[in-house]
């Protein structure tokens, strides 16, 4: 019997947005254009034009013991070439950023191959082979997953996702990697993701409208759509909570096992 992936529970717009992010068949809307070179600059792992450093020879030139798995799994281009593993990390504001860490983690794993992603309360890191990382970063920055004001590309000193916005609607960033231009309303990166100054600012365009963000966000909020309004999502959370509690404490689950150990 073939199952259809459900991605994420819920009946509201928020749940629908989450499913759209995760569903690899759904095409993410591209809303801005950033040059490849600019992405490389913001990531800050290599200089634009510089070759990729490698950590091992291309897989084709290496001798391996016979291994079924190696034949079965096709390596991604970066792995085949022996590129280094590098990272990109995003911080998403609680003020209706389009994505958020858990949503990102699931999205990455549904959509991309060979990712190693880590979820934290306010940030989401993803590690990949460098050349593939650049392609993935381009998708993540150019599409609706990214908002220049409410999402930050931050490698270190990420604090700010839960703080109030500033007067221009920008998320707090202690290192001020990106600045708001009062005249044009555009936001540009003036530092790379760890805070090293860039030679030239990288323009990432205008911030999305607050009302629009309320439509495309994946964050339940009391002043937008509360999670309590989403019966199905609550049902799933409650089911998992009950199952974990019962399982965690071994209620019923380990009863017979325990009895045997006690000699009953």
């Amino acid at each position, binding site marked *: 019997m073939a199952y259809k992936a459900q991605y994420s529970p819920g009946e509201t717009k928020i749940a629908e947005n989450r499913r759209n992010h995760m569903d690899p068949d759904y095409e993410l809307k591209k809303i801005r254009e950033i040059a490849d070179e600019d992405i490389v600059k913001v990531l*800050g792992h290599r200089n634009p034009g510089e070759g990729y450093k490698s950590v091992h020879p291309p897989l084709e030139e290496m001798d391996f013991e016979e291994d079924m798995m190696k034949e079965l799994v096709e390596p991604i281009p970066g792995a085949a070439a022996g590129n280094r593993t590098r990272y990109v990390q995003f911080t998403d504001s609680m003020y209706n950023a389009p994505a958020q860490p858990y949503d990102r983690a699931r999205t990455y794993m549904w959509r991309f191959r060979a990712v190693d992603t880590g979820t934290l309360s306010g940030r989401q890191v993803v590690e990949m082979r460098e050349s593939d990382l650049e392609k993935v970063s381009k998708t993540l920055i150019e599409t609706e997953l990214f908002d220049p004001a409410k999402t930050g590309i931050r*490698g*270190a*000193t990420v*604090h700010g996702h839960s*703080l*109030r*916005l*500033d*007067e221009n*609607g920008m998320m*707090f960033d*202690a*290192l*001020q990697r990106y*600045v708001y231009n009062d005249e044009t309303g555009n936001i540009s990166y003036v*530092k*790379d993701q*760890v*805070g*090293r*100054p860039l030679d030239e600012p990288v323009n990432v365009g205008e911030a999305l409208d607050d009302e629009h963000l309320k439509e495309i966000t994946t964050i339940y909020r009391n002043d937008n759509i509360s999670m309590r309004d989403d019966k199905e999502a609550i049902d799933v959370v409650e089911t998992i909570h009950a199952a974990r509690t019962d399982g965690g404490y071994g209620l019923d689950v380990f009863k017979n096992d325990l009895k045997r150990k006690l000699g009953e």
Partner: protein
Amino acid sequence: MEEIKAVDVKIFPYRRLKPQTTEIILNSIMEFDGILRVIVNGNSLPKVVGYGPAKGTPVNHEDRKVIKVKEDQVELRVSVGELIITVRYENLDLFLEKLQNLLENTMSFGYEVSTGIFTKTNITVSDYLKLGYGIDNNIDPRLIGMVDPKLKSQDTVKLIGD
């Protein structure tokens, strides 16, 4: 020193304030009667990058600015998120009225103003640790509760006006 009745007024804007807005608000507040002290709170902004590959690089944050309050230069070390003003109790009603007017004209977003005690009022163990025993008699009571005792107060406390 004669004892006075004082009360704290907290301004909590729904957005973090720009240095310019802070400057306007502070300067206007300084004109009001009965002001004893003002505490500017917020998330601290580093001067140099603290960790990561860029450690030691200057940050040059736009919000970490020197503003002018009543002819005095004050360096903002935080992204301003909260102002706590201690006011003489007898001036409180008039102060709140004036403050309401001021904030309506300067802030284009929401804010909350609450009255109560938002700073500590007694000398505590951490003050003894920082300043030593016996400070009870020769400390300016206005300084109690003003700063984090771990900080050097000459950086964070500024005496303005008379």
